[in-house]
């Protein structure tokens, strides 16, 4: 018998207070389907609407980042693979995502996120407006605004890369309260 440890998975999720987790191929169609239960989870426990909206906003940007930029694709449909989760820890929401990226993406992401992490809310707001006017950067598949948008909505964020040369993993965590 294989050691799948289903109870362990359950207990792990409960211990880290994860309300919602999805891991696997992610598409826009699937995101439409899962945004309903995510909304539902957020409106429970009398979360103020403004907070729920911020959490939802960060969740959508993270999910769309996986869809657009994950370098791990399913062999059949070519869908992007990643993991996204929302947890509620000590009155703070943690929205986290992880997906595989290429090594060329890594240096660009690191530079962008380091720059954003040094900016205050006023600078982020100014940068957001400037980016709207200038249009997306060449390597962007969206409006190039997603990481700025998230930085504006979170209390703080952190990012991380593992050091695997072949399959670097990109981790993003945002805290909303």
């Amino acid at each position: 018998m294989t050691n799948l440890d289903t109870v362990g998975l359950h207990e792990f999720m409960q211990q880290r207070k994860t309300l919602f987790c999805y891991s696997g191929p992610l598409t826009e169609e699937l995101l439409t389907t899962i945004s309903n239960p995510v909304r539902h989870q957020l409106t429970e426990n009398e979360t103020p609407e403004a907070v729920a909206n911020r959490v939802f906003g960060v969740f959508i940007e993270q999910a769309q980042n996986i869809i657009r930029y994950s370098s791990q694709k399913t062999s059949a449909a070519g869908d992007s693979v990643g993991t996204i989760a929302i947890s509620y820890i000590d009155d703070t929401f943690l929205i986290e995502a992880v997906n595989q990226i290429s090594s060329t993406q890594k240096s660009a992401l690191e530079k962008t996120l380091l720059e954003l992490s040094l900016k205050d809310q006023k600078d982020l707001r100014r940068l957001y407006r400037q980016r709207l006017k200038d249009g997306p950067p060449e390597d962007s598949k969206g409006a190039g605004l997603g990481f700025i948008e998230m930085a504006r909505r979170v209390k703080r964020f952190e990012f991380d890369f593992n050091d695997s040369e072949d399959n670097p993993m990109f981790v993003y965590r945002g805290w909303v309260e």
Partner: protein
Amino acid sequence: MRFEKTQRTPLVEMSNSHCLIVGECYPENISEWSQPVLAALEDCVGDGTQGSFDVDIELYYFNSSSAKFLFDFFEFLDEKADEGISIVIKWRYRVEDDTMQEAGEDFEEDIENCTYHLVEAEPADA
């Protein structure tokens, strides 16, 4: 012209004198959704439009891809207002919704020729 609300797109109603946008905006494919809306806007606020055009927007959430659509939408209206059409935009946000209030303020800063009002709306459950 009417674009029905879906889970991820707002209701859009448009005539020669009025445009209403209400709901949430984070479409699966932003250009697929926004191109017909912008085309309808160009038809409704065409070169021959006389008089005035009123715009009411009440969004509860939009994603970063949709921000570009809103920017283009306002830019077009501002150009038309510069050509002499009287355009009044009302950006409605719910009480205590800082995110949508800030968004409304951000768009206001780039609008020069339209009359622009930020309007605090009552929360839906009130």
